């Protein structure tokens, strides 16, 4: 029933790991040719792979894990998806229903453990309800504000000896669940008028634009009114990264231009963003003169940390489309003089050195920023980039210019080290022709390095760009800045030889230590279309990520380098 439903639902790939409670399901999978199962080496990677797939395609990834340790290993990946509102369906095996509660072998209360980090969860009570419950799980995971859904399946629910009638449910109805399908027209009109009256407007858009499929109407709106645009870490690609109106990412490591433009704005159009603490810095000092329009599918995201003046609950794509239509119907534009002087001010902030200036040095050592710039060049800004967590993640977000949505895959909310490689694998599997890069560090990559083996088995030639600075860079940066340079346990001694390691797993390893080799070797790596290449790049260990907002300050309070601040 489970496998048949997944086939009828159109699921192509399942990421999983077998175990006792799942043996009936795995036996059915063995006979099902329409679904390919990807055997990971650790369940956490299965969830990240499904997550990477979901971020790249917008559809729910499917995970299959066994009871007990299989289920608990999946928890980090489920939490990662939950924090970033990523659709995912996790099928977890469970001990037979008659043994639940007896501390049976490999029993754990999966629904209980996962409760705070799922959008919803189900336990199968009777085999006949499997198709309907699974349909509900997919519907809930993908609709409204997306999120992970766990379905716990006791082993006796999948007993092949028990036969039940199977009908694929085309639709399900839940009386208690109905996400908004459109925004309030009056509010949308009010927001449009507010934008027209604005003298210093800005668009601040987040991951909701990516998952809500709203990059096109957002771009149209911004161009129509000539608005400056900034994206959150999760929202990169929601507006073309190489466009003149784009000010770079905002927030803790956002650009000087984006953060200053936010701070001085009089109207902020927030779209599919949640005023996260890594974006707004000190809430009481946030953008003192701004009126806020907030569009989000989730009412609980509105006025959670920052009060919205015009809240609009609805799917961002339909709301923005309607807003564009209203603006065209009104036919007016914001005051050209006001907007011109606003843009003049913004260009002054942007200056000549670009959004994220850095000291390039004398070339004797490779700067991590240069690696990302080179990666962007070599892949023509068109790769899927999956990142781990730390300095390399911020550098990737700052220096890779994402012109398209769904290309930037990273754990923004939970900040999960170990996401990068399996995330990249999930994208590569579904876009075999595309360049897929995993930007990582020597710390993060070791959190799921065992998946190099999965890459060989399923032929996933991703390119691993390892910014190797021999230390946990972001921790070290904080220790430099806040703890007088006491590098407590942020230094990684006894690193493996990543080249030999890659080779041991059957892949290609390349070490880059000289700046002159960077571009040619990276080009060589990407030219090897059918091989996974591990690029171990020795980068400047003393580099910090700037700008960096100063704790509890306003948006504009930032360190710009080790010695300068605003």
């Amino acid at each position: 029933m489970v496998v048949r439903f997944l086939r009828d639902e159109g699921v192509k790939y399942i990421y999983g790991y077998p175990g006792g409670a799942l043996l009936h399901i795995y036996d059915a999978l063995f006979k099902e040719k329409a679904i390919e199962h990807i055997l990971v080496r650790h369940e956490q990677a299965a969830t990240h792979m499904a997550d990477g797939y979901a971020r790249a395609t917008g559809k729910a990834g499917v995970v299959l894990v066994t009871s007990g340790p299989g289920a608990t290993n999946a928890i980090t990946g489920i939490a990662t998806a939950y924090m970033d509102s990523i659709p995912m369906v996790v099928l977890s095996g469970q001990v037979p229903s008659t043994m639940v509660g007896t501390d049976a072998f490999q029993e754990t209360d999966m629904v209980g453990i996962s409760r705070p980090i799922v959008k919803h969860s189900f336990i199968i009570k009777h085999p006949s309800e499997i198709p309907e419950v699974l349909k509900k799980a997919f519907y809930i995971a993908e609709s409204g504000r997306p999120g992970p859904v766990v379905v716990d399946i006791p082993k006796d629910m999948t007993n092949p000896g028990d036969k039940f009638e199977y009908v694929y449910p085309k639709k399900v109805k839940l009386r208690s669940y109905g996400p908004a399908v459109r925004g309030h027209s009056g509010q949308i009109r009010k927001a449009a008028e507010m934008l027209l009256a604005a003298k210093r407007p800005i668009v601040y858009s987040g991951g909701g634009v990516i998952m809500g499929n709203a990059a096109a109407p957002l771009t149209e709106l911004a161009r129509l009114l000539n608005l400056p645009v900034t994206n959150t870490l999760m929202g990169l690609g929601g507006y073309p990264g190489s466009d003149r109106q784009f000010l770079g990412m905002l927030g803790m490591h956002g650009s000087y231009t984006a953060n200053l433009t936010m701070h001085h704005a009089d109207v902020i159009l927030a779209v599919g963003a949640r005023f996260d603490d890594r974006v707004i810095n000190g809430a009481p000092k946030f953008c003192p003169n701004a009126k806020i329009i907030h569009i989000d599918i989730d009412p609980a995201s509105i006025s959670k940390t920052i009060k919205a003046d015009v809240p609009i609950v609805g799917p961002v794509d339909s709301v923005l489309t309607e807003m564009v239509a209203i603006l065209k119907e009104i036919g007016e534009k914001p005051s050209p003089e006001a907007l011109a002087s606003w843009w003049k001010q913004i260009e002054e902030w942007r200056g000549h050195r670009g959004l994220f200036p850095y000291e390039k040095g004398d070339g004797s050592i490779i700067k991590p920023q240069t690696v990302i710039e080179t990666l962007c060049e070599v892949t023509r800004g068109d790769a899927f980039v999956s990142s781990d967590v730390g300095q390399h993640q911020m550098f990737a977000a700052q220096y890779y210019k994402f012109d398209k949505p769904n290309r930037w895959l990273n754990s923004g909310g939970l900040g999960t080290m170990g996401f990068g490689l399996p995330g990249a694998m999930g994208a590569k599997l579904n876009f075999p022709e595309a360049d897929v890069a995993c930007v990582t560090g020597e710390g993060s990559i070791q959190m799921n390095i065992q998946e190099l083996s999965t890459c060989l088995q399923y032929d996933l030639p991703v390119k691993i760009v390892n910014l190797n600075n021999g230390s946990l860079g972001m921790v070290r940066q904080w220790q430099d800045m806040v703890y007088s340079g006491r590098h407590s346990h942020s230094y990684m001694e006894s690193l493996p030889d990543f080249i030999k390691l890659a080779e041991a797993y059957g892949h290609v390893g390349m070490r880059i230590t000289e700046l002159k080799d960077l571009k040619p070797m990276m080009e060589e790596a990407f030219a090897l279309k059918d091989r996974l290449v591990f690029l171990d790049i020795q980068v400047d260990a003393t580099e910090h990520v700037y700008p960096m907002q100063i704790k509890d300050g306003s948006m504009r309070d930032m360190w710009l380098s080790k010695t300068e601040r605003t």
Partner: protein
Amino acid sequence: MRHIISLLLENEPGALSRVVGLFSQRNYNIESLTVAPTEDPTLSRLTLTTIGQDEVIEQITKNLNKLIEVVKLVNLSESAHIERELMLVKVKATGAQRAEIKRTADIFRGQIVDVTSSVYTVQLAGTSDKLDSFIQAIGTASVLEVVRSGVTGIARGDKTLSI
């Protein structure tokens, strides 16, 4: 401010744990909680009281509404409503005290529902404040045991919470 939030919940195992879990997860207060199935056996009615600033209460109701199993929700405190809590109190009742407790129970419109030679068990329904006042009136010294049901309530007038 104290708020009484009443909701209709799918009568399914695990639904209650989601409601309770939400409060601990997001650091909200629960002062009291009552829950029982309704005349429609697929639904439970849950009433809880919580204390918080208006913005916090707004987040609480939004997040409760987000739970898939919450079918409908009303913040009773936002309009005219009737609030009741049931209390059973065991009090020492010997000598002159016996008459005194009986009189006090009458004043509060309580009933003595169980009697031994030395103990009365008083049943009392009303707002939480009224129940507090009763305890105060008879004096904590003579109270042996108190059990309170938690607050439940219903809107005044035509308004109903139903699907």
